[in-house]
């Protein structure tokens, strides 16, 4: 059980700076999700915390102890990799028991812990198999089992669900959530899927180009995005951004409503694309040359070409500085 602190952490590969000074405080037992576009440095940051990558400058501490110079094996972290990284020449049982053999855990204790983890993850019937005899979802479970049995101070997940198909991903997401209740260990979870981030996280860290754009609970980053980047990244479809003199005005598709009153509408335009999703309909509008998407109740707009007028609650409108991108 341990907190993690990052102080001005930087990383360069040769000349190329990839992470530019990250400060972050993660509380004991907290589940923190790193999100950001591809190449923004999420994995690099995670690997630095794991000890797989040198820290160019700055300081990382786990449980109050600076770990910059510690090998991964002395940091007491467990990591789940995107491709699962199961040892192909060992059975599921051996995979899960492997790390404990090098930590002086007694045979009986190993058996007990592997049995326990296998039970939690519902893979008891698979322990004698080789990894190549497992499906993607089963491998994923084994990879998590391998992390759980260690009972480490910190779990690190690097896009653990990205190799699964959409349906299984949703199922595993729920399962990770359920696992959280049973195994409350400090966790950092990397993903570029914002739904995963929103559903799993206690706090979300949004990264862009090796910098933190915002840290906050899922509600905070959704309700009060700190920058234009966050506004565009969190939420699907993303927030509409309308330029107005020196500010960008942001409003989410779901906060645009059908205009009915007599006062002037918030915005109006011609529908260009109409995408019925069943529960609601996404309507793309052309508003004075800017593309705006609105999530409207079904059947209000039936086909492209119709004129649409929409209203918005002023409380749901966000303003960002046009040059800095920061919230106003």
């Amino acid at each position, binding site marked *: 059980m341990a907190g993690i602190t990052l102080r001005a952490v930087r990383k360069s590969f040769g000349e190329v700076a990839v992470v530019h000074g990250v400060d972050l405080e993660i509380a004991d037992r907290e589940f923190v999700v790193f999100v950001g576009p591809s190449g923004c440095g999420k994995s690099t940051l995670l*690997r630095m915390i*794991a*000890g*797989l990558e040198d820290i160019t400058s700055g300081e990382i501490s786990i449980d109050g102890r600076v770990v910059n110079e510690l*090998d*991964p*094996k002395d940091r007491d*972290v*467990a*990591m789940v*990799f*995107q*491709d699962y*990284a199961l*040892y*192909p*020449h060992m059975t599921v049982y051996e995979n899960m028991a*492997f*790390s404990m053999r*090098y*930590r002086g855990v007694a045979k009986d204790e190993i058996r007990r812990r592997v049995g326990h983890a296998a039970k939690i993850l519902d893979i008891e019937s698979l322990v004698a198999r080789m990894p190549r005899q497992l499906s993607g979802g089963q491998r994923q479970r084994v990879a998590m089992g*391998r992390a759980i049995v260690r009972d480490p101070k910190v779990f690190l997940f690097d896009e653990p669900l990205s190799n699964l198909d959409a349906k299984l991903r949703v199922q595993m997401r729920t399962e990770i959530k359920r696992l959280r209740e049973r195994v409350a260990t400090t966790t950092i979870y990397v993903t570029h899927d914002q739904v995963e981030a929103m559903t799993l996280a206690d706090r979300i860290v949004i990264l862009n180009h090796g910098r933190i754009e915002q840290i906050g609970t899922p509600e905070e980053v959704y309700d009060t995005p700190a920058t234009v980047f966050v506004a565009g990244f969190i939420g699907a479809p993303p927030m509409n951004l309308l330029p107005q003199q020196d500010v960008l005005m942001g409003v989410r598709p779901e906060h645009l409503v059908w205009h009915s009153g007599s006062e002037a509408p918030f915005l109006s335009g011609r529908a260009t694309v109409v995408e019925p999703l069943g529960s609601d309909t996404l309507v793309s509008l052309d508003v004075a040359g800017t593309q705006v998407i609105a999530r409207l109740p079904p059947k209000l707009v039936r086909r492209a070409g119709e004129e649409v007028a929409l209203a918005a609650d002023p409380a749901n409108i966000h303003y960002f500085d046009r040059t800095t991108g920061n919230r106003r």
Partner: protein
Amino acid sequence: MRRAPSWPRHAIMIAVSVLMLIPFYWVLKTSLTGENIYAYPPRIVPVDPHLYNYVDVWYLIPFPRYLLNSLIVTAMAICGNLLFNTAAGYALTKQFPGRRWIVLLLLSCMLIPFQATIIPAYLITAQLGVLNTHLGIALPLLSTIICIFIFKASFESVPRSLIDAARVDGLGEWRIVVRILLPLSKSAVATNVILTFIWSWNAFMWPLIVTRSPEMQTLPLGLARFLSVLEDTTGALYAFVVLVLVPGLAIFLMAQKEFIRGLTSGATKG
């Protein structure tokens, strides 16, 4: 769609195999009969086969001694190869300053024929004081550049995340090599073992140079000595040849599946 019948292909392969096996058969037959190899017409089936030639080889000359020497030297060479080549191969999978130059140096060393290095090799061996010892005979064979590259290629094909996982699981570099990389490089190991065995088992020139006493001689030297010592040696000579060949064949048969995969991996991925 109908598949082409497979028997013509099999027939050709059987014919080629028979052609390849004839010399072996001839050696075996002659060792059992001792008949003159120039006899005409040659007999296909051995007439009164017997094992006296083998008995002669075993008892009349110090065959067991040669065999032991060969076994010791070959075992040393194989152990040395596995140790040094895995270490060097693993090192070359990592990035470090000067890595390119080291690769280049190794590759260019492969161009130098062994004969050209005999004198320096002899001087070094003499300096180390291991002339006329098993270690001295095995010394130049303790590592082979080509096998370093076989290991390097094999290690590089192991997914990097496996190595990372092992590191997080608490393994140091040596354990990563022994517990993760080598078990996943069985074909590279088999290739290295077989090639080293062949080179060491058949080595003639170097053992001839560094051995002084007959007790240190290996099988190929013994064979040569044998030729010059005995008369009418046909049968015994062939028995000797069979005894030299058998261990190599045994090793090859045991490891051939991995061996072939090792030589062709990289050609087909996975």
